[in-house]
């Protein structure tokens, strides 16, 4: 009987140990490399234009997307360029679906409790994400926003998030972003 118990416990231990060991080099496994990305921020002419930033990115679009969107939300590199999202905004998730829809799930205290801003800033913020996602990922065609994991009417009471948003070229400064 004792032998049987020992065999059962040994089997259980072996089963546990057969799990694939965690890789010591996630960067290599995900083919992470520093790549230039286009992050869209507001210009003095109140349009959007890209800032080129080198970011360590995984090769897979679905792994790279949240990294790029989080980099965007961090804010612009230049102090004189206005930050578009509240500083406490978090990117809960960002991923690409096979039909070209990018899902971006935002959260954070300000967006959750009520972001009191005007149409212009909200328009710039929303489309900075749309332009950034569709400009950096060839298969991305439009962005569907979620807030705290679910559908939301707007981020700040103006721009409808009821549908996926494709890029809006009229908001992009073509002199800066050909």
């Amino acid at each position, binding site marked *: 009987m004792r032998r049987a118990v020992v065999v059962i416990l040994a089997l259980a231990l072996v089963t546990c140990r057969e799990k694939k060991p965690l890789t010591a080099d996630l960067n290599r496994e995900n083919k992470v490399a520093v790549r230039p990305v286009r992050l869209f921020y507001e210009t003095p002419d*109140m349009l959007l234009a890209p800032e080129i930033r080198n970011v360590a990115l995984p090769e897979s679009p*679905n792994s790279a997307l949240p990294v790029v969107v989080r980099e965007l939300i961090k804010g612009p590199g230049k102090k004189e360029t206005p930050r578009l999202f509240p500083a406490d905004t978090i990117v809960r998730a960002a991923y690409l*679906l*096979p039909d070209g829809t990018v*899902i971006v799930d935002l959260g954070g205290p300000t967006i959750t409790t009520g972001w009191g801003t005007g*149409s*212009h800033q909200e328009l710039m913020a929303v489309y900075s994400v749309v332009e950034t996602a569709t400009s950096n990922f060839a298969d991305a065609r439009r962005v569907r926003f979620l807030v705290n994991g679910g559908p939301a*009417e707007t981020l700040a009471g103006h721009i409808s998030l*009821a549908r996926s948003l494709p890029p*809006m070229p009229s908001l992009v400064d073509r002199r800066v972003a050909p």
Partner: protein
Amino acid sequence: MKRFALLGFFVVLAVASIVLAQSPAQATLRLPSGDRSVSYVQQSGQTFFAANDVIPALGGTITPDSTGYKVTINNATAAFGPDSRFGVVRDELIEMPVPPLSIDGKPYVPWQFFQGLLAKAANLDVQFDAATHVLLVRPQQQNIVGVQVSIANVQGISKIVFTLTGPAEYSIIKDPGGYVVRFKTPLRAPFPEQTYDDPYVARVQFTGSDVRIQLTGTDIAGDAYQLDTPPRIVIDLHKVAAPAPGEQRPIIGIKPTDQPGIRTIVLDPGHGGKDVGAIGPNGLMEKDATMSLCRKLAASLSAKLGARVVLTRNEDAVVSLDQRTAIANQYKADLFLSVHMNAAVAPRPKGSETYFLSLEASDELAKKAAEVENASHAANPSSDLNLILWDLAQQDYVRESSRFAQAIQEEMNSATGVQNRGVKQAPFKVLVGATMPAALVEVAFITNPEEEAKIQSDEFQSQMVDALTRAVQRYKTDYETRIGIAQPPAAPAPAQVAPPATTTAAPAPAPARSGT
């Protein structure tokens, strides 16, 4: 030793339960054409079906790619990803309780994915019977009418709107404590019962084919009428003298008459209540600035144009964006103007700008879609086009909205010397459902200290009210001339409102204003 044996037993049991939970079993997919056997698993209280079994059985295809799976069914494209509890079909979200699973490299999706997919792509109902392990797919029961309820109190009238998914016969009966709307068809109720913080409506309750409206008092009477496209039943409740004991207060059926021209204007003071909007550097709140301006503009439009003017709010209260548009539709407004103050992070931006709804006409993707539509519309009206185009009420009025927006912007520029920021398009939520020409004006930047001070001055407000009144008058004359109910002024030459350069629309003949 017994303790060790017991421990070992539980370890084996736990391992076995994990293995068994991941092992697919067979369920029945019941289609109108017959039964099929499909694989499913149950995990964490959810039931997942093998997409590779179900989709082909429904006549669709499923294709993997690096980000998930693409599904084509009934000329509709859908997609889902491995870690997302949201899929999409025709640009609409399919919400699942949990993300799909991958078992032996095959995708297993919660059964609710098929429910969302087939409802939107094939007009089919999907139900799962956990007791019999049957996934039932059947045609949607067309005779069931879906109902949505909205209630708004504006200017002393509580307006209840029942929006129906299809035409339905009904009667309205006075009931102790309220009214009952009795339908002759089964209903799909949005909720069993809901209470309201409304002066006249205490509760709405669905029981079978009855909708019971419980009022807050006996001194309330109602006027009811019906609107089409979509079918709606509207009941306006208002205060009357208290009835004598035993007196019945009948509902009087009225239907607004359709008269051509610009007669009713709905003004929408942006934000309100706890939604304060943007705040200026010296503390001016957008909700207060818009309310003040709209009250003055309403008085001006009534006095100078003889128009019936309705405010979506006339107090410091939260009104949802949908309600604001619904109020305009319910009053059968001929024009809708939402008034806002703009905001930017930097203090420097200034000026006014006017928006009308973007239907993505300027987008390259939409242009391609339009080309596809033009080429294939006759051959295949149910093509993939719905991925791009928005089924919005406002889309029939975009050309007129652009003329209206242009008139506003030009008059504001000429009157105030405020920096011209131009007419723009954007997908504004408050404009989406409006069934009339609609625009949103950003009067000035409340975040600019100079403009914040101007917004509060009587002189600036008066200038803006005059400019906006002239813009409405100008659009009214232009529109009524084009539909032939007004003569253009003899001299000086009438100021024709030209469509703005931001639209691709050609100058349009006056559209037939479809009934709301």
